[in-house]
């Protein structure tokens, strides 16, 4: 069903932030990919580097952030070396992103229709004459009732769920190959969460679009994703097909996550059972950033050059002593 063509391939990526209190090593040797039509989940605790990975892939990292190593290939474009103009063309057309708290993610003093129209016109999907009609079509495609009227509404006049639909409409308006959804349902109530996720899934299928779902919610990742990438303190520690990951997690960290939420329900936020917090990313760090919290730790874990192992086809683990 899924053609094996990576839409996004992130390879060996390192990202640092220069801050007043030191250099934050936010990402180290991060590699993952998404194939056409596939939905992958990126899960991990707060601060593990999920958003930074996504923003880097879009080429909209903060000014403080610097890529020190690696490559990103997005639909054939070398993101890290492409001129800004090409990246701008790419964003919103080949790859789109939606964020959490949709109400603040929309311009508060511009009607939602106009905001969609801005994107449509930027990428040549509409012109001055038909922009309104096209924007209304985009609203219709995300099943917004009464799109004519919603077109002229301001974000503050709409509910959070409605705003997220608008965000999706805007993101998908130019039919991108890839959608990155960074915690798209955080802050929405449970029924709305399901509705939004179903909508994303359905639209992705309909358009054979690749999707990256960033979430804290293991249950949600299990329900919707074909593959899952687990991140911890700026490392990708394990990735595998969803069923396989839940059946036989190999990294101690993943195993703990699974044990805490055996049926894949619940969110990482509730997990108290993993000792300690994330290490301070500004400090000197051991090769395995989980070692301080790991029960299986041994002296060998401190040997450098820790690399990902393919333990079975498509199942990668970054651990010296996997389960």
């Amino acid at each position: 069903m899924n053609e094996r063509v990576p839409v996004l391939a992130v390879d060996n990526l390192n990202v640092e932030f220069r801050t007043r209190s030191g250099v934050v090593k936010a990402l180290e040797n991060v590699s993952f990919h998404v194939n056409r039509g596939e939905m992958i989940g990126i899960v991990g605790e707060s601060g593990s580097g999920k958003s930074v990975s996504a923003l880097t892939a879009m080429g909209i990292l903060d000014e403080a952030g610097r890529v020190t190593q690696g490559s990103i290939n997005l639909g054939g474009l070398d993101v890290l070396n492409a001129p800004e103009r090409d990246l701008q063309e790419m964003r919103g057309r080949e790859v789109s992103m939606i964020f959490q708290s949709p109400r603040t993610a929309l311009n508060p003093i511009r009607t939602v229709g106009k905001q969609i129209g801005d994107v449509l016109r930027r990428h040549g999907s509409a012109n001055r004459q038909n922009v309104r009609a096209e924007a209304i079509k985009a609203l219709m495609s995300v099943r917004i009732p009464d799109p004519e009227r919603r077109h002229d509404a301001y974000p503050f006049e709409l509910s959070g769920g409605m705003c997220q639909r608008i965000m999706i409409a805007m993101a998908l308006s130019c039919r991108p190959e890839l959608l990155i959804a960074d915690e798209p349902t955080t802050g929405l109530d449970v029924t709305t969460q399901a509705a939004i996720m179903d909508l994303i899934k359905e639209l992705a299928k309909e358009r054979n679009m690749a999707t990256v779902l960033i979430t804290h919610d293991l249950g949600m990742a299990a329900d919707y994703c074909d593959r899952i990438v687990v991140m911890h303190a700026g490392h990708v520690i394990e990735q595998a097909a969803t069923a396989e990951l839940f059946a036989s997690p190999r990294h101690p960290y993943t195993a703990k996550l699974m044990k805490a939420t055996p049926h894949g329900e619940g969110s990482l936020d509730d997990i108290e059972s993993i000792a300690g917090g994330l290490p301070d990313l500004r400090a000197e760090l051991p090769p395995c950033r989980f070692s301080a919290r790991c029960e299986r730790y041994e002296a060998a874990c401190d040997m450098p050059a820790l690399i990902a192992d393919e333990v079975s086809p498509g199942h990668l683990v970054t651990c010296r002593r996997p389960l």
Partner: protein
Amino acid sequence: MNSNTKIRIIAGRMLQAIPSVFGIIVVTFLLTRALPGDPAVYFAGPAADEKSIQQIRESLGLDKSLPEQFLIYLGDLVQGDLGVSISTGFPVAEELWRRLPASLELTLLALIFSISVAIPLGIAAATRPNSWVDQLCRLIVTAGVSLPVFFTGLFMVYIFYYILGVAPSPLGRLDIIYLSPPPITNFYTIDALLAGDFEVFWAALAQLILPAITLGTFTLAPLARMTRGAMLQVLSSDFIRTARASGLTRSTVLYTYAFRNALLPILTTLGMVFSFMLGSNVLVEKVFAWPGIGSFAIEALIVSDYVAVQGFVLAMAILYVLLNLTIDILYTLIDPRVGLDG
């Protein structure tokens, strides 16, 4: 939101200005009547004799009770009667009206100068934090509020008139060798253009430039500071990230998205800026012998012409209320959220 609600909100704003105007009228009334001493003596001026004082007392109704006097004062105001200036012998309203265009022409040009420097400067500083533009912005902001406008004005005159000789002599709106253009708007520059007389236009503009820059420099600082702060705040907000993630061009992100949002706090500051401007206007008019209402007030102050001063204070305050009202209305037009929370 439809335009009907907007109109209702704007009408509401106008109604809200009424208590301010009333407060202003009460204060200007009290300033001259409720103070110790005999108001009739003030109003009659220092050169008046017993008879004219008595005359004034009767004409102002000073023998009546304070509320009655206030009603008379209100009644006069409604008819546009601000009393008669003792120093010039003309009605104060007429004097002010005749000099208003000179002051407005100066103030408007100063405002244009100030806005067109402060806003780009603030935006540039906000988009490149800690760059040299940002440092320059900081320097201007701190130094700008410390400069006494009469002092800046004088030294502009010294440099550009006395040393460099590029500016005309700082005496009024037009060099005496020119005839003032046929009055239509009473803005000399505009009237000269309407009459097609470019020579007079340049001459009038040349007279305007130094005072306008002087006045504008003083208000530049708060505006630039606010622009920088507001832009920094807006640029770090979520919807700017969305706009960038949608591939919108840098200029769309900066102007259509960021700047329009930053405009709201900037507009609010503009109220304070107008207060500074109308006050400094008086000082600048004195430095450049500008025949506006500020100079009129200073002359009236020197000869203790209270009717004139009272009229001047009232006129400036009403002007200020109108400017604030304009700001409020602009705000209402820009921000769709206005009016929903009360």
